[in-house]
């Protein structure tokens, strides 16, 4: 017997340990401010009546008084819609919904017209949406205008038509020629069926209500869940109304269930765990980013809050980080979904699990209720709780046993709590040990955390030892997540070592003899940096301690090079050093005067030649005298002069090809002229000879 009980206890504990639950917070000021921001009207109105209704309903649930600003424009829009003959069924429905909140003054003529339109549509309705709008409109009309008679005579037929679209798994189809079923449609159908029940003449068939209850239970069978106990409804297909998110589908189902619950006085026997799961789903969204999501969330939460038989209660912690040093107290709040106070109850801390391990301790301590703040306070932490991360398991105990039937508290709520504190670090010292003998060469005391600037020197035969003690505020040993010692060479190469511990004492010994190769044989200054940190340590630090001058032996041939350090990108892509080109030294040219002297000297033979010519009696007697030959003779000399001038130009600036071209022309000319002249000279001299 005792053994069986023991096994049962273990099984329960294991089950409790395996299922996680999320901590959610009830609706708060952040939701209100988001509503004001998201539902801000453009030019005094919200666009469509549907959006107006969403805004008004959200404000109403959250208790925001903002109706006056848009009341006039909305009421005018409602009146226009109801009067107009071209309004669609949906418009009537939306207008009536807006009116249910604003309660405008309506023309009775328009109301009668609306009623007849809705009744006609109901008689001719075939799709689920048509049923929903027409029945919904009639229900709203009945609520607002009690004098109007909207009772249904053929409620039975309508009920059956709607039921015909239902599937066996609890979902509904939108119309008979659409095979896809969805949870969203199920919610709409439930609302419509509940409306039929409320509108039907007093003979309500009890079998209908039983059918509805079964439908709801079947629907709950298809609910999806997360591991932390959150339940939600999702769609498998993209329906005719576009893609429905889990939020809108779940909200639609909740509306349906709430409508059914309101239409009958019987209990629906809803599964409390799943209702709680749905509540956690809606609260777990946080503050939605779009106006429609916020409407769905707040609307669904308002219906869940008002469910008679299983009202969810939320256990939340405003602060999950508790500082031991600041002497914070753990506070727990139990409230309804919308933040209203819960009935009188007490909260007990049942168990504490150490996060990340299987240790657990059973506590069973009651928290003290502070009426002023409405919080349950854990005045003192249990004895064996020190700095670290824990999972606290709370349970809600009702003072009034009747409340247990109407409220759902979700059983054990597990919360991740961080207990933080200032960790004491003592006896910190850094020492250079000499060789195997372990004698102390150089010992320096450190202040951690604090400013330190030690200057040590060591060679490769010595060891460096860093040691310090760490203890929690309660005096226990503490193992932080990070305890690193980093040595950084002046060239930028880093070496990181873990500091190990045994109990409270943390120590690391760097034996340089074994580390010489790891350090790439780089001697010089190494900066020492110590990092000690943990998520729950309030005084984590990363500090330079000083430096150590290491004298290492020279690197052998095959030693690995240190990894290249990251190059500063500005230096890599910046301008490079200026290159000074070394040209071949120019040849030594002679002095200018010397060159000019020789220029003159070279011309001397020419003048000597001319002088010699004069002395020899050279003359121009044979120069032709008559016109034509003399012309040719002059041209001949001019031609030669031209060729020489061309050569000078060639030397100065022309290139060979131009010169050759010009020379060709000049040569032709010169040939012709020369031939003429010389043949004339030859003929004259031969005439002389013959004579």
């Amino acid at each position, binding site marked *: 017997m005792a053994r069986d009980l023991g096994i049962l206890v273990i099984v329960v504990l294991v089950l409790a340990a395996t299922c996680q639950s999320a901590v959610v917070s009830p609706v708060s000021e952040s939701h209100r401010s988001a509503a004001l921001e998201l539902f801000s009207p453009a030019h005094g109105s919200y666009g469509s009546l549907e959006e107006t209704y969403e805004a008004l309903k959200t404000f109403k649930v959250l208790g925001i008084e903002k109706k006056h600003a848009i009341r006039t424009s909305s009421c005018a829009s409602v009146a226009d819609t109801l009067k107009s003959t071209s309004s669609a069924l949906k418009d009537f429905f939306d207008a009536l919904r807006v009116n249910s909140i604003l309660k405008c003054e309506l023309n009775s003529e328009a109301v009668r017209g609306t009623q007849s339109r809705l009744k006609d549509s109901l008689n001719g309705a075939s799709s689920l949406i048509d049923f929903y709008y027409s029945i919904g409109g009639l229900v709203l009309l009945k609520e607002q205008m009690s004098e109007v008679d909207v009772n249904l005579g053929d409620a039975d037929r309508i009920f059956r038509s709607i039921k015909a679209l239902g599937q066996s798994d609890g979902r509904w189809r939108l119309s008979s020629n659409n095979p896809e079923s969805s949870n969203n449609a199920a919610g709409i159908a439930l609302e419509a069926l509940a409306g039929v029940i409320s509108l039907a003449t007093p003979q309500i068939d009890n079998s209908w209500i039983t059918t509805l209850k079964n439908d709801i239970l079947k629907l709950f069978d298809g609910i999806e869940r997360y591991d932390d106990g959150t339940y939600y409804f999702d769609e498998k297909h993209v329906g005719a109304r576009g893609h429905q998110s889990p939020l809108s589908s779940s909200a639609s189902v909740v509306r349906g269930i709430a409508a059914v619950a309101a239409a009958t006085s019987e209990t629906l026997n809803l599964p409390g765990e799943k209702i709680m799961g749905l509540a956690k789903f809606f609260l777990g969204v946080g503050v939605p980013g779009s106006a429609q999501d916020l409407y769905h969330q707040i609307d669904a939460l308002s219906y869940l809050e008002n469910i008679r038989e299983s009202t969810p209660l939320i256990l939340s912690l405003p602060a999950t980080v508790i500082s031991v040093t600041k002497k914070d107290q753990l506070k727990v709040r139990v409230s309804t979904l919308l933040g209203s106070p819960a009935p009188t109850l007490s909260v007990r801390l049942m168990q504490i699990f150490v996060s990340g391990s299987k240790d657990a301790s059973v506590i069973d301590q009651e928290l003290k209720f502070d009426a002023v703040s409405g919080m349950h306070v854990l005045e003192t932490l249990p004895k064996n709780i020190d700095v670290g991360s824990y999972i606290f398991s709370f349970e809600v105990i009702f003072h009034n046993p009747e409340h247990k039937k109407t409220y759902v508290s979700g059983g054990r709520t597990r919360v991740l709590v961080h207990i933080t504190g200032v960790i004491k670090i003592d006896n910190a010292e850094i020492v250079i040990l000499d060789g195997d003998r372990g004698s102390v060469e150089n010992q320096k005391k450190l202040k951690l955390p604090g400013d330190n600037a030690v200057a040590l020197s060591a060679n490769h035969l010595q060891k460096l030892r860093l040691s310090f003690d760490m203890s929690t505020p309660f005096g226990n040993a503490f193992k932080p997540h990070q305890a690193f010692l980093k040595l950084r060479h002046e060239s930028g190469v880093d070496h990181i070592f873990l500091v190990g511990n045994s109990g409270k004492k943390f120590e690391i010994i760097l034996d340089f003899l074994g580390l010489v190769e790891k350090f790439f044989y780089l001697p010089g200054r190494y900066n020492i940096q110590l990092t000690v940190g943990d998520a729950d340590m309030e005084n984590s630090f990363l500090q330079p301690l000083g430096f150590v001058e290491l004298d290492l032996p020279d690197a052998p041939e095959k030693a690995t090079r240190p990894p290249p350090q990251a190059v500063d990108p500005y230096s890599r892509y910046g301008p490079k050093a200026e290159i000074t080109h070394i040209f071949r030294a120019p*040849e*030594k*040219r*002679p002095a200018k005067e*010397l*060159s000019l002297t*020789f220029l003159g*000297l*070279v011309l*001397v*033979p*020419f003048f*000597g*030649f001319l002088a*010699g*010519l004069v002395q*020899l*009696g*050279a003359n121009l007697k044979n120069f032709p005298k008559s016109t034509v030959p003399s012309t040719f003779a002059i041209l001949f000399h001019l031609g*030669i002069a031209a*060729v*020489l001038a061309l*050569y*000078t130009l*060639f*030397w100065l600036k022309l290139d*060979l090809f131009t*010169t050759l071209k010009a*020379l060709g022309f000049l*040569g032709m000319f010169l040939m012709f002229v*020369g*031939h003429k002249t*010389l*043949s004339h*000279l*030859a003929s004259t*001299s031969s005439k002389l000879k013959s004579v």
Partner: protein
Amino acid sequence: MGRSATTKDAHALFHSLRSAYAATPNNLKIIDLYILFAVATAVIQVAYMAIVGSFPFNSFLSGVLSCVGTAVLAVSLRIQVNKDNKEFKDLPPERAFADFVLCNLVLHLVIINFLG
């Protein structure tokens, strides 16, 4: 004694050469003078090069070869124009002169190109 005999012989040789040269026709003397002028220019250029060094060498060659080349052409002109030369009896001197001019022009084109 031997020395004075040698110098006397040299003087006698020199005088006989001078008198023989005086008999040469004038046109040949003009050509000889021209050859002398060209060679003298070449010698001065070599002397300059000896002083300042052979940079730029191409210019030096160009200058020297110009003088030498034109001297050579003048020599060949003299041979062709000389009436005592039996080989070129039928060649009119104008023709030889025309060749001389043409060859000089070609030579100087090459020289100017090589002068740089």
